[in-house]
């Protein structure tokens, strides 16, 4: 029982991170970006490359882990580099595709384009990296027993898993402060609410759009690295998370950061609890059930103002 909750929260916090980025781009760019999942995958793989590069440049060969974690200082460096590169990828995609379609097409054209872009990105990644799973580290981590086995089934977590929770909390609090305390954040919220008025008030909406891509893709890259840290890095990593991301963002209410966090944790927990009920093979369908339920019962989401 406790173990299921803990596992659900770890998976849920990865979903939360991705969903926060998704809900931001959804509310400010005004379309459902099917490429968000691929930003997670690219983030995870770009960190693999950045990590090997860092190791090669420093001549370290292998990472010396920082106790109690399974990785050395090179991984955080690689993660930052990967977040920057993923953001650059998103900006390039916006420049080449979405910006042009924003001027001429309907919102739904952007959705089609993002669907095509997602497929192209996923296959490009497969072309570049192949399909074999990758890992940041081969270190085996010993899980720490927090609760003995005779209490509610017991609870064991690895330090890496706890780190994932911590990173998510830090990222979300940071984003919250950005949105509420800075001019850029207020401009982003203003643009999400009313882009025409935002322009009248002096907001450079194209600038806000670029900032949104950078933040959304950066968060996705961090989520991808976290997913890779506690699991395998595979070309399907982000694709398999896409439905949970959408379910979380809609569950929380599009545009609500805290909603996306809550939605992500709920979807993560639901996935975790579905395993003993329906078997691990149907885990991915849980997000679909959550999505259908929320659309039928409360389409504007838990924290959304309006559908």
């Amino acid at each position, binding site marked *: 029982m406790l173990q299921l909750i803990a596992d659900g929260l770890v998976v849920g916090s990865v979903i939360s991170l991705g969903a926060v980025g998704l809900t931001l781009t959804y509310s400010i760019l005004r379309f459902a970006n099917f490429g968000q999942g691929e930003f997670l995958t690219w983030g995870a793989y770009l960190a693999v490359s950045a990590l090997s590069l860092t190791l090669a440049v420093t001549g370290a060969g292998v990472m010396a882990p920082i106790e109690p974690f399974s990785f050395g200082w090179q991984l955080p460096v690689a993660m930052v580099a990967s977040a920057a590169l993923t953001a650059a990828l998103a900006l390039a995609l916006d420049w080449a595709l979405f910006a042009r379609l924003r001027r001429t097409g309907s919102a739904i054209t952007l959705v089609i384009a993002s669907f095509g872009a997602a497929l192209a990105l996923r296959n490009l990644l497969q072309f570049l990296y192949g399909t074999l799973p990758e890992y940041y580290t081969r270190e085996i981590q010993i899980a720490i027993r927090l609760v003995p086995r005779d209490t509610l089934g017991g609870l064991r977590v690895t330090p890496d898993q706890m780190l994932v929770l911590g990173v998510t909390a830090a990222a979300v609090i940071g984003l919250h402060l950005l949105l509420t305390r800075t001019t850029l954040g*207020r401009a982003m919220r*203003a643009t999400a609410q009313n882009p*025409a*008025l935002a*322009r*009248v*008030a*002096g907001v*450079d909406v194209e600038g806000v759009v670029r900032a949104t891509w950078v933040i959304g893709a950066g968060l996705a890259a961090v989520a991808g690295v976290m997913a890779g840290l506690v699991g395998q890095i595979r070309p399907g990593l982000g694709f398999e998370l896409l439905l949970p991301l959408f379910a979380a963002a809609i569950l929380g209410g599009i545009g609500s950061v805290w909603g996306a966090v809550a939605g992500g944790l709920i979807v993560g927990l639901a996935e975790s609890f579905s395993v003993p009920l329906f078997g691990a093979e149907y885990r991915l369908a849980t997000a679909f059930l959550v999505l259908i339920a929320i659309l039928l019962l409360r389409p504007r989401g838990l924290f959304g103002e309006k559908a």
Partner: protein
Amino acid sequence: MTAALEFCAVEGGYEPGLPILRGASLAVQQGEIVALLGPNGAGKSTLVKAAAGLVPIWSGSVMLGGRDITRVPAHRMVREGLGFVPQTENVFANLSVLENLQLAAALVPKERRGSIDAMFHLFPDLARQRSLPAGRLSGGQRQMVAVARALVASPSVLMLDEPSAGLSPLLVGVVFERLKAVRETGVTILLVEQNVKAALAIADRAAVLVEGRERLVGAASDLADDGRLAGLYLGAGVH
């Protein structure tokens, strides 16, 4: 003397081939309140939106204090000193009153940045509601937030699109009184209005727009008694 805001034979519209503005010209002098009147569909709102950079201008020009702002993008207008209060959805409903003003102030260079306290002084009602989301305020208070949001960027010219729409007559009076107070601070005002009587009561001059062109321009006191004004409103119905 250079006009504070001048439209020179402006033609434009949303879609090519469907002009709404058909050569409109109008000069607003420094320190004036000018009311822009006209029947529905005459292009009044379109004219101020075109000046604000929200509607494409095909030909002609818009000058602000002698500078050509025809091709300035909408979001740069506040820096140029042109403020605009749209008719509807003119506040950021999900931002607090204070955040609405903070954002607007932060988006202009320091020398234009007005004091938020001064806005709360001008609109005392808002000071008490400063931390409420603007969307939760009453219609009249929202209109005040919208005006304050534009004023905090210290515009030389303020354009308002039907500030009286949806307000009770009492509130219209209150809002228009505030506009007079705003003019006292040296801001030039161009006011689009359906409420002819209230508009002529505070305006120095008025212009009547019909089918995308100015048809009658004069002192507000003269126009109030001018039979041609009503004629233009009625005549437009024929087309």
